[in-house]
């Protein structure tokens, strides 16, 4: 059934205005526009620009959520101005006025326009965003299996709007972090069977202290993306291939941390936290803590550990031996590990590709 057409309504837009060249501080600027409620925030901004103030700065082009130009923050959340209905935006507004701000983690050029070149595009360039295949070219096209290409279609859906970059919490404290958009782009090529440099790409990203293992797993990018690219999920896939297939032992303790975690849960069914730290630094065995690389870190963590024991935060027994599930359950867990880890290929369900089952008819 077609949606009934609603008449135009008044909406208040509160826009964050800033012109770095003016020498003035940023300020809020309010305009009331009149449009049908299903029209976009972008159309609202453009009406304000046409009717009240031609100097309002907003970048836009396609107005159909495909060019990625109009990334902004609406009521504090990242999104495309052209892809957000006015009535939806008003519903999530604090006080009825729709707040529109420039994206975060990037310098503002003017008003809602941020410097994508200085941050986003630089990071994308950082991951060598093109296919590398120097070998003899086939006479016609490269033939690849359908499955192998379907796997990377999710990252191909990226429209480079920068919404994930805007909200990345790791980048907030570490601006040098390669970030979600560029790492998702990296998976575009790491996962492409035609690319010849999978190992080199992953080595480079793993060894970079602001690379693959600098992601804090906060789901901000997953939530921000208007195209369901799931950048964090792509980062996890990069890690999976780097550690399990390429066996890259990086200097940032990323691979060691993962292996230690997985092994400790296999050995006791639960996480033995006190062993995780030394093994992450020194290597995945009980002897890891005696590795020189572990020594320095452990020494610096010692006051924290001693404080913990002193406060009876953890018992000495737990600190030394950890905790375990009952033996028969532990055996079952070990069997699960053995069965799954011995498979020649990992089984990975991606709901983006497979979709969900249809609801069974009642």
């Amino acid at each position, binding site marked *: 059934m077609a949606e009934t057409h609603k008449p135009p309504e008044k909406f208040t837009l509160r826009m964050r205005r800033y012109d770095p060249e003016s020498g003035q501080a940023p300020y809020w600027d309010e305009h009331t526009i009149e449009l049908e409620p299903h029209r976009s925030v972008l159309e609202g901004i453009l009406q304000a620009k046409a009717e009240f103030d031609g100097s309002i700065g907003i970048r836009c082009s396609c107005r159909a959520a495909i060019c990625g130009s109009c990334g902004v923050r609406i009521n504090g959340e990242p999104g495309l101005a052209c892809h957000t209905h006015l009535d939806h935006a008003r519903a999530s507004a604090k006080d009825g006025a729709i707040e529109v701000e420039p994206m975060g983690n990037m310098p503002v050029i003017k008003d809602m326009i941020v410097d994508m070149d200085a941050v986003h595009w630089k990071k994308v360039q950082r991951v060598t965003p093109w296919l590398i295949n120097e070998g003899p070219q086939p006479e016609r096209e490269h033939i690849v299996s359908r499955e192998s290409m379907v796997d990377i279609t999710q990252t191909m859906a990226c429209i480079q709007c920068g919404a994930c970059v805007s909200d990345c*919490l*790791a980048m*907030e*404290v*570490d601006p040098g*972090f390669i970030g979600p958009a560029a790492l998702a782009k990296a998976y575009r090529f790491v996962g492409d069977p035609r690319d010849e440099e999978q190992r080199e790409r992953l080595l480079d990203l793993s060894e970079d*202290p*602001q690379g693959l*293992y*600098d*992601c*804090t*797993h*906060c*789901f*901000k990018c*997953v*939530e921000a993306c208007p195209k369901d690219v799931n950048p964090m999920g792509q980062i996890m896939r990069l*890690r*999976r291939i780097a*550690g*399990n297939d390429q066996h890259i032992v990086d200097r*940032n303790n990323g691979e060691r*941390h*993962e292996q230690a*975690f*997985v092994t400790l*849960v296999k050995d006791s*069914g*639960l*996480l*033995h936290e*006190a062993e*995780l730290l030394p093994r*992450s*630094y020194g290597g995945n065995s009980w002897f890891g803590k005696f590795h020189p690389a572990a020594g320095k870190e452990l020494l610096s963590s010692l*006051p*924290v550990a001693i*404080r*913990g024991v002193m*406060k009876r*935060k*953890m018992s000495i027994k*737990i600190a030394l031996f*950890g*905790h375990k*599930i009952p033996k028969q359950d532990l055996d*079952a*867990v070990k*069997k*699960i590990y053995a*069965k*799954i*880890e011995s498979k020649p290929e*990992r089984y*990975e*369900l991606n*709901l983006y590709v497979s979709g*969900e*089952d249809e609801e069974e008819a009642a």
Partner: protein
Amino acid sequence: MKVAYWPGCVSRGFTPELHGSMAKVAPLLDIELVQLDRANCCGAGVIAEHNQELADTLNARTFALAQQVQGAELMMNICSTCQGAQGECQERLDANAEYRAHVNETLSDEGLTYEKGLTNKNFLWLLVEEIGLEKLSGLVKRPLTNLRVGPFYGCYIVRPRNRLGIDAEHPRDHYLEQLIETLGGTTIEYAGMRKCCGFPIITMNKEASLTQAGRHLGDAVDAEADCLVTPCPLCHLNLDMQQPLVEGVVGRELKMPVLHLPQLVGLALGLEPKELGLGRHVVKPTSVIDWSTSVVGAAA
């Protein structure tokens, strides 16, 4: 109500005061905890990062054990990270019958089966949705009068919204504020309340990790919070246990006590700070807050 209770690893390892305080609070709320002693670690996202099928199977095992608990209405956890990591696996298991059958095949060695549609709720969700704030408010014996509490959720329990079932009807990303007010306290909003504590990268990029914790703690100090409350023991490790190191990294004194959710509830229900394990924190709440005046001040 009877629940299949999954305490998680950290609440029995590095933050035993969390598990301990939950055990103390449950009877006061008429919650019968049937502990899933046989269940395994949720993997905290790290096992999924290693091998998705392994993480899904291990968590399906936990879900199957929970479904075996006779008379339990649902499964309850006390860790944001368990909620998120288990929820991610459950989403895949519930979405695809073929995949579920494949995972159950592995579990069948042990005679276990996971059936689609388990309800797994964090204690926070259970408080608001099952017990209800109105009933809870009637149980308050010692209102947290004048106590300024900053919520700290932990990423795994607020994102992604769809998977976690956060919507207008279930504003689960605002439950801590509602709860604090119900217990008679004052909610302090600050920039970092739904941000990342930094813990997942503590071994990979210690400075960035501690800077994250430091910023949020600093924001809470600036907003004049007396303490924070968190449903996540991993956040607690970075915010409390590491706080002396954090102070060094961000170059300011913080002295911000961080309470586990059941501890805050327990205080309001009349339990003593000591029996809730408040003395076991690195930043001792008892040394910062005078409970006798700021909390016990008003008569119940």
